[in-house]
């Protein structure tokens, strides 16, 4: 079905518009998001997102403690991708200190970050199925994610809030035998991907629920500062792993991977292992946003395999984390990394002491969420979960 234009829908009976609070305790607003919907029957005429229910003053706390002490707080921002949050903050402080990390630590970082990207995308795919009323893919996705969490547990002892990547490297080397277990997971996961495509990506009802729903044009996406899969789903080939500043791209410099962006119905049609783009799908709709994530998982697998090979091939130190009370040089630094949900930026301003003078986090989900009122206007009530779910927001990161 095409999107319903409220102008074109005729009503026999004109009733008053109804204001509905969707959330903050609604099952499909992914946490404590509150959407105020102005509805005319089933048609939503206006959507206003309200945030702030998960605000924990993380940035203010960052001004009271040293950068290494603040790492656990970054874990709790995008709690589905703690490694990537750690990475963003660690690299920002490294930039301020002008610190270089050994290659071995770099490859470990790539491994865990890409694993966490898969985990994050799995949650996105699973909960997206849930938003559309499909329960089973959720369990399949979480089963796979569970294996990633097991791997992380071996690495750092934590399953969700890792604090593993620190300034100067990582907190410890990989345990013996971990690479084999990681490889086993990758093999298992590769077998599951077609299953997920069958129950979600190419499922007839799924396509009808998502194709053409919540179309985000590339111009709008750029204007709102969208990033990550949301931006790439709109056809903009922009990924900080390739397009970021040198400190970020150097992390991936000798890696071979593709940036997944949808461009007018072309991308994976020459590939047999991905389901084709359905004819109903419009560039920048919910289906494409979902699809980009699914294919990014495949690219992450490639990256992890390369990182494992490189890690085995390089001897040397794993890097020494900085001291808890390490004095920071005077100055400021801002760095954006490519987190699973988009560009995660951290800023640190230092006055020369061990405690930063100002800490700031730029959230990708915040910008991604801000397009909601733009792209939800005129959709049906049932499309709201479909659109919000496809943006894949985490309120912990938005509110901080």
């Amino acid at each position, binding site marked *: 079905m095409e999107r319903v234009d409220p102008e074109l829908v005729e009503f026999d009976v004109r009733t008053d518009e109804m204001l509905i609070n969707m959330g903050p305790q609604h099952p499909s607003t992914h946490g404590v998001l509150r959407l105020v919907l102005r509805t005319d029957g*089933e048609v939503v005429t206006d959507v206003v997102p309200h945030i702030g229910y998960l605000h924990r003053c993380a940035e203010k706390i960052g001004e009271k403690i040293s950068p290494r002490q603040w790492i656990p707080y970054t874990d709790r921002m995008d709690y589905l991708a703690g490694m990537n949050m750690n990475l963003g903050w660690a690299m920002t402080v490294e930039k301020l200190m002008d610190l270089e990390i050994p290659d071995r630590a770099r490859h470990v970082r790539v491994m865990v970050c890409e694993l966490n990207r898969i985990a994050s995308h799995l949650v996105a795919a699973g909960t997206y199925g849930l938003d559309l009323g499909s329960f089973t893919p959720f369990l399949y996705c979480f089963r796979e994610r569970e294996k990633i969490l097991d791997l992380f547990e071996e690495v750092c002892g934590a399953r969700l809030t890792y604090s593993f990547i620190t300034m100067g490297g990582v907190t410890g080397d990989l345990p013996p035998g971990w690479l084999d277990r990681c490889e086993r997971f990758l093999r298992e996961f590769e077998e599951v991907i077609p299953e997920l495509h069958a129950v979600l990506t190419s499922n007839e*009802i799924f396509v009808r*629920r998502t194709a053409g729903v919540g179309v985000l044009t590339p111009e709008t996406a750029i204007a709102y500062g969208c990033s990550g899969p949301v931006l790439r789903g709109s056809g903009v080939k922009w990924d900080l792993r390739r397009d970021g500043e040198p400190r970020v791209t150097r992390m991936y410099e000798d890696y071979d991977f593709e940036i997944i962006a949808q461009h007018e119905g072309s991308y994976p049609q020459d590939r047999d292992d991905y389901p084709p783009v359905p004819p109903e799908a419009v560039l920048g709709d919910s289906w494409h946003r979902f699809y980009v994530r699914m294919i990014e998982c495949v690219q992450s697998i490639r990256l992890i395999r390369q990182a494992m090979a490189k890690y085995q091939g390089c001897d040397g130190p794993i890097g020494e984390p900085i001291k808890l009370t390490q004095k920071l040089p005077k100055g400021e630094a801002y760095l954006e990394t490519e987190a699973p949900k988009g560009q995660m930026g951290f800023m640190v301003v230092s006055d020369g002491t061990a405690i930063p003078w100002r800490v700031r986090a730029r959230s990708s989900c915040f910008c991604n969420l801000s397009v909601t009122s733009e792209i939800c206007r005129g959709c*049906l009530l*049932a499309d709201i979960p479909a659109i919000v779910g496809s943006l894949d927001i985490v309120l912990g990161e938005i509110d901080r």
Partner: protein
Amino acid sequence: MADYLVQFGLPVWLAYGGVALMQCLILLTIMMFAAATFTWMERKVSGRIQDRLGPTRVGGRFGWLQSPADGIKLLCKEDLMPAQADKILFRLAPYISFCASFCVFLALPFSNGWVAQQLNVAAFFILAIAGLEVFGVITAGYASASKWSLYGAMREAAQVVSYEVPFGICVLIPVMVAGTLDLVAIGNMQQGWGINWMIFHSPFMFVTFFIYLTCAVASTNRAPFDLAEAESELVAGFLTEYSGFRWSVFFMAEYGSMTAVSGLAAILFLGGWHGPIPIADLLGLTYSNHAILGWFGELLGACNFLFKAFLGVTFMMWLRWTLPRLRIDQVMTTCLKYCIPLAAAMFVGVMLWTYALPGGILPRKTPMAAVAEAPAWTTVETPGGDRP
């Protein structure tokens, strides 16, 4: 049976009243048992589909006692009612739904003559009564004084009332072939080998069966048509404000309807209480041999019927745990643009087929053993006799 009691000098009102009460109790037990079993099964089936175990703690390895445990939990819950709710309607709504769902069983035969009240318009009665269930939902949605509930209720009203039309046509097609609305008679017509089943009457009938299934899922509000309680959109739809015992009454009504529409499918399309092989006839379990043997034959038939109904419910569960939910406009499109025209076309198709090939194309096989003689209190239909 009531007549039998009257012969012994009981007053007519007492005899009939007592028998009616007994039948109601039996049916209620069956319905409760079905609801409990299907709840447990739903958990197990969903567990298996989702690559997990399902309940394993209560009642041994397979969690047999999960349903009673849930029941006790629901009964012990605090009785909550929103302050703004319409008190009377809020209390009444679950029972309207439950009564409608329950009354369907009054006319649903479990085996030849095993029916609480054999009506000569049973199919019509079931359609009419099953349609009443929507009133309970609408009442619940209105009385809850919640916007989500109201949405659920309005969706239910639009959806169920629309699906009544193709559902009705699909029921009408076997009825047209059988030439009667009496479900016992329709069931008896399909006696013999599985090839006599209504679903194999013609290719059109075969298609009708699947349209019937689609409409049955939609009119019982099961996924992927569970828009009235779509939990990712409407929190819980019309059930949002319900909890505890009232919620469980709605729940039983839902499982009751699932069983009822599956049972109706079994009678109308899948041979009712007749298996694919006429075992009862082959073994001589007929009334013509002995009353007790005949009774056992009927018992076998009832098991057969319940098994088919059970298969139908399992199919619905399978759908629920596999498919995403449709959007309201897509649900209505499915009904108005596909189900109704298809059902109507099948109606015409079956009509022409019956007219052109009165004997059918498949050879009809009569049971090898003696033709079952139904007890005097049922309509006797000799197999293959009246069927066009």
